[in-house]
C-alpha cells in the first residue's frame, strides 16, 4: 500500500518560515495571500495489505518520529 503523511504546525504555533515565504510571494507580486504555513509530506510504501493494520502502524510512526506532537499535527492518507 502507499501512504501519504502530512505534518503541519499546530494552530497558534508561530511559523517564521511560513511568514518569510508569504513575504516572498508578496514581493513576487502575488496579491491576496492572507497566510502561508509550511509543513512536510512523507510518501511511504508499505508491504502491509490490511488498511487497518497499515493505518495503525502509520499513526505510531507519526507519534514516535515523523511529527513532534508538541508543535505539530499530522494526517494519514492511504491508497492502493
Amino acid at each position, binding site marked *: 500500500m502507499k501512504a501519504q503523511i502530512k505534518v503541519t504546525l499546530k494552530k497558534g504555533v*508561530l511559523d*517564521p*518560515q511560513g511568514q518569510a515565504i508569504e513575504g516572498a510571494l508578496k514581493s513576487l507580486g502575488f496579491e491576496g495571500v492572507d497566510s502561508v504555513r509550511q509543513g512536510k509530506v512523507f510518501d511511504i510504501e508499505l508491504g502491509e495489505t490490511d488498511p487497518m493494520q497499515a493505518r495503525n502502524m502509520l499513526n505510531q510512526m507519526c507519534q514516535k*518520529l*515523523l511529527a*513532534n506532537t*508538541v*508543535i505539530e499535527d499530522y494526517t494519514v492518507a492511504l491508497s492502493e
Partner: protein
Amino acid sequence: MQCAVIAFPGSNRDRDMIAAVTKIAGKPPHVVWHKDSELPQADVIILPGGFSYGDYLRSGAIAARSPMMKEVARAAERGVSILGVCNGFQILTEAGLLPGTLMRNASLKFVCRTIELEVVNAATRFTGLYRPGQIIRNPVAHHDGNYFVDDDTLARIEGNEQVAFRYANGTNPNGSRHDIAGVLNARKNVLGMMPHPEDLIEPAHGGTDGRPLFEALLETVAA
C-alpha cells in the same frame, strides 16, 4: 566522579566539551559513540552541540531515537546528572527527557554571538555555584534555539522552578518564550541549554562565566 560525553554523527562541539571536562575534572571523560552497545558507568552524561544527522527531519530528532538514548533515558531515571548543550538540548527535548521543543529562530538567522544570561534557579546541581539572579555571559551559536512550549506546560515549568537560565537585558537571540535559555526536568537532574558554557572556562576564552557550571556538576569545588 566519572563523566561520559556522547558523540553522534554530526556532533562538532564534542571536542570543546571533552577539553572543558578534562581541564576542570582533572581527567578525561569517557567518549561514547552513539552506536556503542553500552553506556559506561558515569555520574554525569553530557550531550554536546553540533548538527547530529545534519538536522534532518527536525534538529535532534534522529539522534533522539538512537539506541544509546534509551540508555541515557534509563540513566536519567536513576537520577544520573545529564547536561545537553545546544544540539544536546534539542536531542533531550526530542527524546522527551525535557519539556518543550526548539524551533527555527524567529529571525530565521543563524545567531553566533555572546549573550547575557540570568541564573533563574541557582539551587540545582548544575547552577549551585552561581548566585540567584546573577547575570553571566555565554556564547550562543544556533539556528534552531527558539524554545516553545504550550501555555499549560509553560505555567507548570515556571511554577516548578524548572527554568534554569533566561536571556537577560534584551539579548534573547531567537524568540524563545519567556526568554528561556535553559530548562530542567521536574526532578532537576537533567538540564538542557542553548548557550555554550564549555566555551567560556578560562581567561584565554575571554571569560570564565561557564566554569562554575562544570565545577558544580563535576563536584570539583564544594558548593
